[in-house]
């Protein structure tokens, strides 16, 4: 019997929600790491009981946690005392230090400002090795571990992709999305708020901006600006990794060329501002977004929480409302807070800043809240367990 495990990161802890394949009765475990900001949790595709979590705090900084038993117990990967008395332990699983000369990026006043590590927004486990994980950092950088999270090294080539021109937005400057190409182990896509989308074709040694076709007319009057676009999220279907979908600050976009050229596919959406975007597990042309009224009012248009689904790869969108609040709803859905499972009838999940996690077991046609009163939800990931 298949099961699903939903990993929820919130402002004050992590929660693990489990159900059988019917996805009707849910068991809630947590809070794990109560009181800490849990930016993201994600399991290894090759060992689903291996889960990595980003635990962070304005007081105590960044901690990486790892579970080897599906979230029942957790360890800091390099947290054991030194085996030899007198030897100083490395304790480096929480150590994220930029490689080489720290360098600078553009600051709000136009001057240059040094990179300062703040936290890990996103963890992306390798598709083939449970000990290898990529981590997206604020200030924007990508780190990699090959020893199960004990030590982390930056892939500094990313910051060489015009990093001196990147500028933080109101939410900071973070690598918030990491997509691994399942057909090409050397290709990785990442996205950074207020910098744009980037791609490597050599395993992270060098990166290039892939933002042609994006328009940010007020912030970036230069229509050919290579960086500086506020990309909120990108997504792909594993069967067709050259096709990407993007929710930008404004605009929903699509590329058929691995990011070489983007086109607007917002079509009939009531607002093309939003944060998450996801692709159906079995239908590469079926895409989900959650329109948000504007960047000034981070809540749904008309107080109606609606997921929009396109079955045509964009442009034509249908509102999915059954089971979602259609009056007086003023929550937001953050960029990492939507995911799909891969059961035969694709399940779709999203969490809100109001602490609800909604699930649909029928590709978005109907929705039910799994839980209603968690802290603000930062991230939602789903594991399909067979």
């Amino acid at each position, binding site marked *: 019997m298949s099961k699903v495990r939903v990993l929820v990161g919130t402002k004050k802890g992590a929660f693990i929600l489990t159900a059988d394949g019917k996805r009707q009765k849910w068991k809630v475990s947590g809070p794990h790491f109560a009181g800490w900001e849990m930016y993201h949790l994600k399991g290894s595709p090759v060992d689903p009981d291996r889960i990595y979590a980003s635990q962070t705090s304005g*007081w*105590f900084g960044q901690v990486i946690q790892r579970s080897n038993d599906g979230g029942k117990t957790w360890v*800091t990967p390099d947290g054991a*005392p*030194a085996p030899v008395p007198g030897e100083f332990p*490395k304790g480096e699983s*929480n*150590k994220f230090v930029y490689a080489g000369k720290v360098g600078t990026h553009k600051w709000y006043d136009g001057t240059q400002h040094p990179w300062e590590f703040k936290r890990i927004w996103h963890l992306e486990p390798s598709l083939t090795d449970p000990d290898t994980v990529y981590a997206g950092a604020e200030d924007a950088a990508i780190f990699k571990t090959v020893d199960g999270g004990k030590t982390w090294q930056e892939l500094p080539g990313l910051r060489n992709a015009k990093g001196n021109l990147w500028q933080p937005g109101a939410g900071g400057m973070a690598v918030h999305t990491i997509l691994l190409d399942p057909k090409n182990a050397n290709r990785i896509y990442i996205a950074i708020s207020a910098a744009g989308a980037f791609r490597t074709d050599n395993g992270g040694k060098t990166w290039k901006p892939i933002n042609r076709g994006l328009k940010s007319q007020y912030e970036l009057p230069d229509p050919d600006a290579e960086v500086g676009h506020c990309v909120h999220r990108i997504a792909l279907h594993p069967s067709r990794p050259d096709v990407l979908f993007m929710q930008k600050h404004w605009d929903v976009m699509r590329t058929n060329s691995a990011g070489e050229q983007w086109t607007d596919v917002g079509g009939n959406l009531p607002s093309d501002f939003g944060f998450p975007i996801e692709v159906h597990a079995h239908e590469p042309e079926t895409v989900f977004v959650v329109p948000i009224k504007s960047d000034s009012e981070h809540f749904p248009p008309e107080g109606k929480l609606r997921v929009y689904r396109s079955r045509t790869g964009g442009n034509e969108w249908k509102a999915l409302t059954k089971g979602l609040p259609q009056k007086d709803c003023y929550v937001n859905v953050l960029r990492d807070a939507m995911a799909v499972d891969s059961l035969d009838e694709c399940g779709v999940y999203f969490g809100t800043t109001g602490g609800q996690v909604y699930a649909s077991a029928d590709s978005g046609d109907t929705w039910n809240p799994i839980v209603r009163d968690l802290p603000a939800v930062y991230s939602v990931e789903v594991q399909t367990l067979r």
Partner: protein
Amino acid sequence: MIRVVLPYHLRNLARVDGEVQLEVASPATIGSVLDALEGSYPALRGTIRDHATQKRRPFVRFFACKEDLSHDPPESRLPDEVASGAEPFLIIGAMAGG
């Protein structure tokens, strides 16, 4: 034997209840106590002092004998009462938002 009181979240992270007791060579300083603490509980590395700069994190404070030692340099000797174990060295999460 130096006694160290950790804030709630760091006790959880270190998986300890109550005070931590550390053997620290004399003369005990703020820096040597933190070295010994991180040596015994590596999960705390980076949570009190920044990994790269080794500076105290902004919202972590140090107290002992009703004195705020947060701005004292790491090589500062701790009061005799702390060095003897009569009084604890307090690591506090500052009251600041959240």
